[in-house]
C-alpha cells in the first residue's frame, strides 16, 4: 500500500498533547520508562511497538483511565493527572477513545450504543436531532444498515467501525485508536485505514493510532514513533523510522513484510 501523503493542515505550532518524562510501573514491572511525545493539531501520529510494550497503557494514561507514576501529561492545555473528576469528564468529552476490542455495550443495540453518550452529554438535542446525528455517524462508518442490530450479531470489523462511530458522535478534537486493524482481514484493514483518514479530514481531528501493523502505519501516519523498551526510540516518517540499522527495528519490519 502507498504511503500516506502528509496532511497539509497540520499546525506544527499547536500541540494538542504534550507528554514529558512519563513513567508507569505495575508493581515491580516498569512498562513506560520516561516517554516524551507531542501530538500536533490535525496530525495522525502512529505509535508502533510490539505486544506488551505499553501502548495501551500510554493512551489509557492520556484519557485518565490510569494514573502516571511520574512525568507530565498535558492534553489540550490541561494536566490530566491534576484534574478534578468533573474537569476530567469535561476533557474526556473532547477525546474519542476507540478500544482495542471495540468495547461496545453488549446489552444494547447499535442505536442505543450511539445514543448513550448523546443522551448524557448533548441534552439540548431533540429526539429528531439525535436520530439525525446517529444516522450521520453510521453513514460515515458505512454501517447504517446495522442500526437495530445487537453487537453480538456484528463481525469484528463491523464492531470496530461501530466503536469508532460511538467515539465520533460527540465530535472529539482528539481520537485515540487502540489497534484499529488488529485481527481483521487485509481488505477490512484497508477500509478501516481509509476511515481513519476520512475522520481526520471530515472531523478535523488529531489522532494517535496505536498499531503493530505496518501497512496500517504507512497508510494513516503523518508521523511515526516507535516504542521500544519503554521509550520512544525512533521518530519520523515511515521511511525515516525504518532506515535504522537497529536490529529491533529491522526485525519488526521483516516480521511484517516477509512471509
Amino acid at each position, binding site marked *: 500500500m502507498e504511503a500516506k501523503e502528509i496532511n497539509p493542515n497540520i499546525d506544527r505550532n499547536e500541540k494538542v498533547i504534550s507528554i514529558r518524562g512519563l513513567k508507569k510501573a505495575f508493581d515491580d514491572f516498569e512498562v513506560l520508562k520516561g516517554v516524551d511525545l507531542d501530538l500536533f493539531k490535525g496530525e495522525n501520529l502512529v505509535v508502533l511497538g510490539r505486544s506488551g510494550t505499553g501502548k495501551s497503557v500510554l493512551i*489509557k494514561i492520556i484519557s*485518565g483511565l490510569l494514573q502516571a507514576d511520574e512525568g507530565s501529561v498535558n492534553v489540550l492545555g490541561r494536566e490530566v493527572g491534576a484534574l478534578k473528576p468533573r474537569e476530567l469528564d469535561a476533557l474526556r468529552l473532547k477525546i474519542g477513545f476507540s478500544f482495542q476490542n471495540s*468495547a*461496545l*455495550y453488549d446489552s444494547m443495540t447499535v442505536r442505543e450504543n450511539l445514543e448513550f453518550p448523546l443522551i*448524557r452529554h448533548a441534552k439540548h438535542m431533540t429526539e429528531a436531532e439525535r436520530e439525525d446525528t446517529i444516522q450521520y455517524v453510521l453513514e460515515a462508518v458505512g454501517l447504517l444498515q446495522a442500526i437495530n442490530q445487537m453487537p453480538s450479531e456484528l463481525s469484528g470489523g463491523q464492531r470496530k467501525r461501530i466503536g469508532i462511530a460511538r467515539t465520533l458522535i460527540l465530535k472529539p478534537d482528539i481520537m485515540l485508536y487502540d489497534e484499529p486493524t488488529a485481527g481483521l482481514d487485509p481488505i477490512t484493514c484497508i477500509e478501516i485505514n481509509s476511515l481513519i483518514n476520512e475522520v481526520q479530514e471530515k472531523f478535523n481531528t488529531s489522532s494517535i493510532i496505536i498499531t503493530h501493523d505496518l501497512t496500517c502505519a504507512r497508510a494513516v501516519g503523518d508521523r511515526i514513533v516507535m516504542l521500544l523498551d519503554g521509550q520512544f526510540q525512533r521518530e519520523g516518517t515511515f521511511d525515516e523510522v525504518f532506515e535504522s540499522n537497529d536490529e529491533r527495528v529491522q526485525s519488526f519490519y521483516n516480521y511484517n513484510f516477509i512471509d
Partner: protein
Amino acid sequence: MDLDKNKPGTASSRRRYVTTRRLDRIFVELANVYRFNARFFKEVWLPPYEFKEIIRQCYEIGVRSLPLISLTGFIIGIVFTNQSRPSLADFGATSLLPALISVAIIRAIGPLVTALIAAGRVGSAIGAELGSMRVTEQIDAMEVSATNPFKFLVVSRVLATTLMIPALTMFTTLVSLLGGYLNVHQNELTSLSVFFYQVFDAITFLDIIASSVKSVIFGYTIGMVGCYKGYNSSKGTEGVGKAANSSVVTAMFLIFIEELLIMQVINTIRAF
C-alpha cells in the same frame, strides 16, 4: 528516592508489607470494600439519576424472579407444615399449627429463603454481567465517555435489589402461608379465615418491622456483593466466572451472618 531502580533484584525492596503479604491483602481488600460502600452512599444522592436503568433493573430483578420464588415459597410452605405436624400431634396440639407456621415463616423462613434464592439468581447474574463488562473494557468505555459507570451500573443495581428483595420477601411469605394453609386445610379442615386469624394473632408488629428491615439489608447485601465482585473482577474470562461464583458464595455467607446478628438484636429489643 530509590536510586537503583533499574538494577535487577531490587524489585522486592520496592514493595514493602506492613504486616505479612497475605494479611496486608486482607486489609487492602477491607479498605476497598469500605470505600465501595461509602461511594454508593455518596453517589446515590447526587444527580444525574439513572431512573430508566433503575426501573429496568427492578423489572429484571423483581418481576423476573417471581416464578421461581413463588414456586419455591409455596412448596416450602407445604413441606414445612407437613413436617411440623407430627411433633405437635404428639402433644395433641395440631391446632397450634397456624401459629407455628406464622412465626416460622414470617420471622425467619420467608426473608431467608427469598434472600438465598435471590443471591443465587440475581447475585450471580450481576456478578457475571459487571465482570464481563469489566473484562471487555465496557466499564472503561463508559468512563472515557464521561459517564459515571459506578452510578449507571452499581447504584442502579444496588438500589434495585434493596427495593425489590423486600417486595419479593412479602410475596414469598404470602405464598408460603398459602401453601401452609392448603396443607392445614386438607388435614385439619381449618377454614381460610380462621387460619389467617391465627396467623396474625401469633405475630406482633415488631415481627413485621424486623422482617422488613432484615430483607432490606439482605437486598442491599446481594446487590452490593454482586456489584463489588463484578466491578472489581480480574481480567480474563476466568475472572468473570470467579466474580459470578464468589458473588453467590459471599452473599449467602453474609446473609447467614446478618440473620444471626439481627436475631440477637431483635431478641434484645423483645426483652424490653
